[in-house]
């Protein structure tokens, strides 16, 4: 079998700041309205997916979108195109301009935000991530698949690399540009009667430890075979970072100005009050170990915000529209314009504690170790009640040690009430950078393992 290994230029497929500025400025120049904004997101997303320990889907897509908002008084029209050529720019700006004459006024609209100084953040772009070839990704996948095959186990997961550019310009003088890369690998290791999970993310593909991932998943998978029945009920738990990431994601949806405004946030009317146990959650756009970006999708400077400090609700994040409606200060956390969600923490961090994973487990007399959650959904957003399943490595803990694997649980639990019983916080933070929002790699998060006093499992399944 012949292999053609083409070295790749890290900038291949990128537009670059000058070209994106030209595209955005051209859109603004052609827009016919009181003011206008152009958001350009371009990325090359490449993902090598494997199952049954072999690659079965292996894809590369070069994607770009130009989103133009034209404002006429309090009338706002937004159009998006994937065509960044002259015809596409002309079509989208003309259509947005025409539409801005037709749409009804939104009396709550406060105008596009002014340009504000944007601080410098550490670079989130690593050349070798952008330059990763299909063969290099396949070899990383094989470093996960091969050891599982050697142990008569099965691996399924993916290795991906993404190079993305974000640019925002407006007639109010806004200009913001950031290139960034993300490399992710994740895998479930499956045996005859049990499975286990591991994942790694970094902006630098060289820091994605495929061997470590494979070792973690294989060792846990071997321990997870032949799970026993354990009755549903309320247990003390140790949650691996994979599970904690889900809690941070859901609470992030509630730690926003719009959630407070609409009466569906657990911190609504409770800033300054204790809402959880001793955990601290921050939004830190400058975290060099995350995917730093110092501005939001309106080109506004993103502030570091302490959301919950040792259990006390301190603040929520805002975009310009929500800040205007509620009289708050814009923190610079607007998502790409969409119909569903205006703002959210995009660089959340549950602060590390001082305990190793083993120390967290050692403190539990009788409890459950959860590797990750599956298919989690709001049951009651105001009370942060979420239901979901455990998956890929659930174990009973007895007398401070992992005792035996157990069949998966369904849980129905208020997430912030679970954090009220925080007994320990892991000292290692795990980066999660794979999530997407509207076709854009917008959100990343770092979280530790947690030991919680009470977590309610409301059902079981058959495996």
């Amino acid at each position: 079998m012949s292999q053609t290994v083409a070295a790749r230029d890290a900038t291949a497929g990128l537009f670059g700041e000058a070209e994106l500025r030209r595209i955005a400025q051209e859109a603004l120049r052609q827009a016919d309205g009181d003011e206008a904004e152009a958001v350009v997101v371009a990325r090359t997303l490449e993902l090598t997916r494997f199952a049954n320990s072999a690659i079965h889907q292996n894809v590369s897509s070069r994607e770009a979108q130009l989103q133009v908002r034209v404002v006429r008084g309090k009338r706002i029209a937004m159009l998006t195109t994937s065509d960044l050529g002259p015809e596409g720019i002309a079509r989208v700006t003309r259509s947005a301009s025409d539409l801005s004459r037709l749409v009804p006024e939104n009396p709550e609209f406060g105008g596009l935000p002014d340009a504000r100084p944007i601080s410098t953040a550490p670079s989130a772009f690593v050349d070798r991530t952008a330059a990763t070839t299909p063969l290099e990704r396949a070899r990383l996948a094989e470093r996960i698949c091969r050891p599982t095959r050697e142990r008569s186990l099965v691996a399924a997961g993916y290795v991906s690399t993404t190079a993305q550019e974000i640019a925002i310009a407006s007639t109010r003088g806004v200009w913001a540009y950031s290139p960034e890369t993300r490399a992710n690998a994740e895998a479930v290791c499956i045996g005859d009667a049990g499975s286990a999970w591991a994942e790694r993310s970094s902006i630098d593909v060289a820091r994605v430890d495929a061997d470590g991932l494979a070792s973690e998943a294989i060792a846990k998978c071997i321990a997870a075979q032949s799970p026993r029945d354990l009755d549903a009920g309320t247990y003390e738990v140790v949650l691996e970072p994979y599970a904690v990431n889900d809690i941070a994601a859901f609470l992030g949806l509630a730690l926003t100005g719009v959630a407070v405004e609409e009466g569906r946030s657990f911190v609504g009317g409770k800033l300054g009050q204790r809402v959880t146990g001793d955990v601290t959650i921050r939004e830190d756009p400058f975290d060099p170990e995350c995917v730093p970006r110092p501005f939001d999708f309106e080109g506004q400077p993103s502030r570091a915000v302490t959301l919950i400090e040792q259990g006390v609700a301190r603040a929520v994040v805002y975009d310009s529209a929500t800040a205007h409606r509620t009289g708050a200060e814009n923190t610079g956390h607007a998502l790409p314009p969409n119909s569903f969600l205006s703002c959210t923490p995009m660089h959340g961090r549950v602060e590390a504690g001082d305990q190793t994973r083993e120390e967290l487990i050692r403190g539990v007399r009788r409890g459950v170790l959860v590797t990750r959650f599956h298919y989690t959904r709001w049951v009651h957003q105001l009370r942060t009640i979420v239901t979901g399943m455990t998956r890929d490595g659930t174990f009973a803990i007895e007398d401070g040690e992992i005792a035996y694997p157990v069949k998966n649980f369904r849980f129905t639990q208020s997430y912030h009430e679970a954090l009220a019983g925080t007994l320990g916080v892991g000292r290692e933070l795990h980066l999660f950078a794979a999530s997407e929002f509207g076709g854009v790699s917008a959100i990343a998060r770092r979280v530790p393992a947690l030991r919680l006093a009470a977590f309610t499992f409301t059902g079981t399944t058959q495996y």
Partner: protein
Amino acid sequence: MSFAAQRDLANRSLDTAKTRGATYADVRYVRRDVEDVTVKNGHLETVDRSDSFGFGVRVVADGAWGFAASQIVTAAEADRVAALAVEIARASAITKTGDAKLAAVKPARGTFRTEVEIDPFAMSFEDRVGELLEADDAMRTVKGLRTTRASYEIWREEKLFLSSEGADCEQLFFETGCGIAAEAVGDGEQQLRSYPSAGGRSQNTAGWEYVRKWDLRGNAPRIATEAIALLSAKPCPQDVRTTVVISSNQLMLQVHESCGHPIELDRALGSEAAFAGTSFLTPDRLGTFRYGSEAVNIRIDSTSPGGLGTFGWDDEGVPASEGWAVRDGMFVGYLMNRETAGAIGTTSNGTMRADGWARVPIIRMTNVSLMPGSAGTLEDLIADTDDGLYLDTNRSWSIDDKRLNFQFGTQIGWEIKNGKLGDMVRNPTYTGITPEFWGSCDAVCSESDWVMWGTPNCGKGQPGQIMHTGHGAAPGRFRNVRVGVVK
């Protein structure tokens, strides 16, 4: 760009792929135009029009798969992307345990078009938005709501598919969806009612006639009143087993989650194990496993009028088809593509679908529907029920990675006492194990109460893909169901 011009570029990509060593190749060009409009609290919150155009090339080379896509539509890019797809396939081959094989299919040739009564793109923008504003206004005639929303989506998609086997087909799809929602907050409670279904909107392959059919303005005051009433409604009975009658719009989601996904053969064969999961409906159970009671009949049908999974050909050129997934309660059919169908010794029933040009096709639901029974209307079914709960419109949904343990919440419920609806209950939930739950189904309403719903938000695959799937359902009754998980 015309289909003819796209065809020239597609043929160029096919030639390049074959020259580079591909033993199979296909090319899709997709142009998608979408308009999403949301009215919130009486004001136009967002107007988002988008157009997206690009192409994807899928190949087999060295016995393995590769896929590449781009939004740059030029001859040079057609060559680059095809060559990249082959390079990717060759990289895939370093892990292969066998060669990719495709079950035979007659090359697709022809055209398909969604029939619409009112082309939504031909209407004026003011007319479309005006109907939303009227519905939103009608909700806000009810005092005490925190938030009201009304939204629509109109969708037009052109698709050209060519393959190295000689397929060449053009398709044009229209979709229209709409919905309204009222939210009330008070005393630590947050309650939502939406119409005609949950999740923002229901959608069909249809024109604007689909919006008119639902009479959003006429139903708005009822929805708003129910949202307010839920704040002081009694809680759902806690952790009891009882009879539940489930509305059509909730039961369609139950079908989607507990039948539609587990009959995906890629899941059953492990292809989705890391993300969506696998399936309890393993191939050894095909034709032998009792999925539900004899009242349960579930059909796979990509020809159903209005269904979001209705088309001429799927995204590997297999024609639309119809067949059974569950017949008289027995599990008898999968959703398949050419590769997985071949693996179990049959032919594809045409369920490969991709979310636009930038994503590779994967097995997706088309229209997976619970077929009508003989229980009459919803009123007849309730009249036939002595004691239990009627549960309506989804609020929460979750199911395990083999699709066994599920838990759903609905926006609203009512007690059923002696064949009549009684008190309203809030925060209802129900949970169970899939085959036990469907095994407890003793009645499904008749054709008169059967509705083709559409879920425009089904997630699957990595990179993530959102698919629009169709599900017909009529209300059904289930015995001895555990309800009231949330206190």
